[in-house]
């Protein structure tokens, strides 16, 4: 039973991962990533990590993916150019990925970790449930927990600054545009450009 669940979830996770890189439209890539995240949550449940699985579904598949879908809808999925700056990139990249996989597998499986081939010890019933994780977070890992919350706050402020309407950014641009800027922005950066966009 456990093996069947593992292989089903593994096929879902791998299929989702390949779907992300194979889809032309970024919107379908986001949908494939949601499939991948749900399969990964099932794998976490198999590993008796109930809290991590729930956080995966709620935070990732819920909140973060909604953010992605909004940005894809705003930006629009453009087709990618067929131009290759590195000749043979389409053949070299899979080669490198396979080499990375073989390297990682050899590195892990040839290590002398004897417990790798075993099922893992029997764990008590409350292993990995929200109470256990919360106790660890608030007692043993209090400092990393607070540091990550500050980091999250900084990232939110940074995103607001980055994606805001650039009122101040336009004030910083001098009256005579430097030649480098003109090349980047083909429509002339008139003061009304910010209001339109």
């Amino acid at each position, binding site marked *: 039973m456990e093996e069947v669940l593992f292989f089903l979830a593994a096929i879902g996770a791998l299929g989702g991962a390949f779907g992300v890189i194979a889809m032309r439209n970024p919107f379908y890539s986001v949908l494939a990533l949601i499939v991948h995240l749900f399969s990964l949550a099932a794998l976490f449940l198999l*590993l008796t990590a109930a809290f991590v699985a729930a956080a995966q579904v709620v935070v990732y598949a819920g909140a973060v993916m909604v953010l*992605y879908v909004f940005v894809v809808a705003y930006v629009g999925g453009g087709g990618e150019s067929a131009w290759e700056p590195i000749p043979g990139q389409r053949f070299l990249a899979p080669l*490198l990925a396979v080499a990375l996989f073989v390297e990682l597998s050899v590195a892990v499986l040839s290590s002398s970790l004897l417990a790798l081939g075993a099922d893992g010890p029997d*764990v008590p019933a409350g292993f990995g449930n929200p109470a256990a994780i919360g106790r660890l977070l608030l007692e043993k890992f209090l400092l990393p927990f607070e540091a990550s919350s500050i980091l999250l706050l900084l990232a939110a402020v940074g995103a607001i600054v980055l994606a805001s309407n650039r009122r101040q950014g336009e004030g910083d641009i001098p009256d005579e545009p430097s030649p480098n800027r003109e090349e980047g922005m083909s429509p002339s950066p008139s003061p009304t450009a910010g209001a339109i966009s």
Partner: protein
Amino acid sequence: MNTDWFVVLSALLFSTGALGILLRRSPMVILLCLELMLNAGNLALVAFSRMVGNAQGQVFAVIVMVIAACEVVVGLGLIVAIFRRRLPLDVDDLRELRG
């Protein structure tokens, strides 16, 4: 289920994400592939935590999730800023910083 199955699956997912980063050109899809790689790391962390029988590895996985959320927020903010400036959303065209 043995731990090595989970670890090999995690390696496979990680290299799939790396393949996507090497192949695709849209910054949005590259961010999605970064998510794939971070999640592969999470899977390895949780698998090893089960192997040792200690829940501390799962706390690591939760913190990695927070880092991934930060990365997504900043990355999507950058993409929106690039789009607002009418620059092309293509990592090969955005190369003013190249030496």
